């Protein structure tokens, strides 16, 4: 048995292992007053061309624009037109309507898996609006908002979720692992954080070719523990790569709170300090602040100012995925007590305060968006739902492993088709 050396190490004090513990567990009353939430508008906005160091005090601050008075405040106000604000509101609401329906579709057995991004809509939708359409997005799995903001057809998304014969990815990927080269949206991996060095590499390539495109990537705060995160940061700073790292700090990584990624000691934005790159920390539930921070980083990268790490401080309002039950590990009160509110509601109230929107229009729009999702769902269901026969033909399973089909895959493809004939001599029964 391993024991402390020399009994207890002479007169040296015994060491203790620290294991982080979240503030609240199921049943606990929640009080977020320990979080320091600064006044909107109070954060200075350095020039995009500044030395990275000038951003570093912002890594311990929180960039906020929208106040409790529903007005926009301070130097980070991006001064967007009401039309742009309404578009962002609409797309965030669409993401939410889409999430609700797809979650239900999974519960109804139409597919195997789904993941919502409830409460985090601004971090993808509004950030995407701050990028150029040809900037390359390297997403994680909770960035359906990026695709929706780039106008991806809902029916295509649902075909993918159902893995049906209309699925552009040929039913190969787990639901929500989208890909759209046309929309400059990289293929999503199930393996966490792999997209970060890839985004850096894309940005390096763009720079080496004298192109004007930048790369933006997203990752959960939990996944910043992976080595890939640190490799990406090192390469980005070494080559001053035109890349934006969006760390979505939604407080939870499945059942593990942000303390298990180092969040007890420093903010996630503060990692920029050690790497010598620009860092911003932003209220992720504030659509205007998210837009402004992303725009700042995009303008900086585009003018050869190099990489920026942005921590979006937000809250995962629902379970990790359809396979998760968050009531088993966190207090149900957290969401209600979350001090930064709901991103959709806050932008809506801002537009109303500007006299550019009202509750009736919001209700009308919600109904319209839900009907839109429902129609897309109906159309997608004509292509089949998971496990009901309407999938891509068997031989497609063997394609794209390599550019060309090698002999072993040719033989295996024949075998798969033969097996099907043995199993269903009269063709697959209709279900």
């Amino acid at each position: 048995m391993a024991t402390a050396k020399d009994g207890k190490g002479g007169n040296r004090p015994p060491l203790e292992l620290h294991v982080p513990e979240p503030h609240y567990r199921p049943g606990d009353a929640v009080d977020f007053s320990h979080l320091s939430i600064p006044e909107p508008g109070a954060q200075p906005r350095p020039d995009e061309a500044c030395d990275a160091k000038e951003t570093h005090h912002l890594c311990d601050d929180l960039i906020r624009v929208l106040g409790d008075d529903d007005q926009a405040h301070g130097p980070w106000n991006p001064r967007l037109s009401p039309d742009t604000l309404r578009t962002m509101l609409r797309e965030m609401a669409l993401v939410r309507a889409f999430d609700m329906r797809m979650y239900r579709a999974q519960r109804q057995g139409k597919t195997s898996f789904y993941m919502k991004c409830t409460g985090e809509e601004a971090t993808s939708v509004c950030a995407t609006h701050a990028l150029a359409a040809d900037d390359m997005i390297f997403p994680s799995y909770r960035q359906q908002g990026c695709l929706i903001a780039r106008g991806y057809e809902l029916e295509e998304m649902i075909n993918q979720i159902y893995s049906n014969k209309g699925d552009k990815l040929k039913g190969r990927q787990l639901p929500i692992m989208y890909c759209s080269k046309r929309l400059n949206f990289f293929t999503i991996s199930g393996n966490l954080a792999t997209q970060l060095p890839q985004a850096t590499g894309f940005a390096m390539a763009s720079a080496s070719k004298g192109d004007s495109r930048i790369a933006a990537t997203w990752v959960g705060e939990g996944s910043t523990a992976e080595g890939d995160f640190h490799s990406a940061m090192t390469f980005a700073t070494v080559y001053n790569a035109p890349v934006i790292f969006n760390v979505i700090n939604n407080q939870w990584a499945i059942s593990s709170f942000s303390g298990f990624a180092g969040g007890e000691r420093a903010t996630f934005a503060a990692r920029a300090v050690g790497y010598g790159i620009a860092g911003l920390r932003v209220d992720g539930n504030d659509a205007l602040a998210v837009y402004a921070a992303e725009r700042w980083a995009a303008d900086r990268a585009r003018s050869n100012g190099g990489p920026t790490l942005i921590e979006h401080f937000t809250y995962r309002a629902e379970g990790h995925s359809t396979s998760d039950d968050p009531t088993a590990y966190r207090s149900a009160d957290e969401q209600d007590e979350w001090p930064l509110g709901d991103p959709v509601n806050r932008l809506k109230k801002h537009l109303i305060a500007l006299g550019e929107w009202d509750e009736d229009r919001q209700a009308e729009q919600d109904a319209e968006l839900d009907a839109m999702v429902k129609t897309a769902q109906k159309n997608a269901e004509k292509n089949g739902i998971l496990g009901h026969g309407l999938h891509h033909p068997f031989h497609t399973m063997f394609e794209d492993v390599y550019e060309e089909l090698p002999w072993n895959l040719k033989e295996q493809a024949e075998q798969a088709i033969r097996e099907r004939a043995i199993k269903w001599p009269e063709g697959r029964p209709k279900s």
Partner: protein
Amino acid sequence: MSTETLSAEAPATDETGEARHMNMIEAINSALDVMLTRDSDVTLLGEDIGYFGGVFRCTAGLQEKHGKTRVFDTPISECGIIGVAVGMGAYGLRPVPEIQFADYIYPGLDQLISEAARLRYRSAAEFIAPMTVRSPFGGGIFGGQTHSQSPESIFTHVCGLKTVIPATPYDAKGLLISCIEDNDPVIFFEPKRIYNGPFDGYYDRPAKNWKGREDAQVPDGYYKIPLGKARTVTEGDAMTILAYGTMVHVAESVCREKGVAAEILDLRTLVPLDIEAIEASVKRTGRCLIVHEATRTSGFGAELSALVTERCFYHLEAPVERVTGFDTPYPHSLEWAYFPGPVRIGEAIDKILSE
């Protein structure tokens, strides 16, 4: 599981305790609990394994019972998890890291292959890595390509590592205890498709649970199943079938349905391999089928086929056959076309018998 084999392998002692029904998750949990209780150096770490008890619940209740410094959550870093387990082993602990899915073990490979597996050799045994890396593996749950893989042959190819794969709750517990007590690094792959019940290969039939099965009668206490000893699942003369994990059950049900009296060997540990049992069986039956879910090319079946051919060539009455997954990533919608199910196994059995 008959009581004869139980007593043959692990003489029941007072420690073994009463047997009761457990599914594979409960059996694994029980093994971890027994070892945490017996040995204060045993330490569990992994993503979501602490308070929550693991995404498959294998560590449920263990943090509460044994404390936060012995059963704890980790950062999402497989390289870190395995790397710190090497360091804990260097101190003298017996770490049991969990990798949430086998598909996510790859970031930890340098620490496993270059470090854990080589520590004993390069330090002339001054340092060892007595860790057991537990991880659910295999498909059949519509998990898509990153929740379905069977990467065992990556590890069997690495000298210095042991690779263990149980097929029943009883074996899962006894093997896991042996792994934890083993002084070398062990990969313990848990076939997630059979966590809750054996699988006959027919995804379109109602799922079975472990209830009522002898091999799900698991003693409450301490017992071991030695590494390197295969289990004879069914006896027979028609052919030898070598399988492990989920595929043991699929092969068994195919033989039953076809009325083929095969001798099915559940290998249980791939490294160390029970070469004696394999040789004796194949020499007797003269025919050999190898079944695994992993991709075919350079799969463990290739090693088994080579060994059988080298050692039993003059006893063989038919070429050795392999039934495997296809050489593609695990597809989501076509999961059951990929899976080496009853039709693929049945065809291979017919082919071997026709020689």
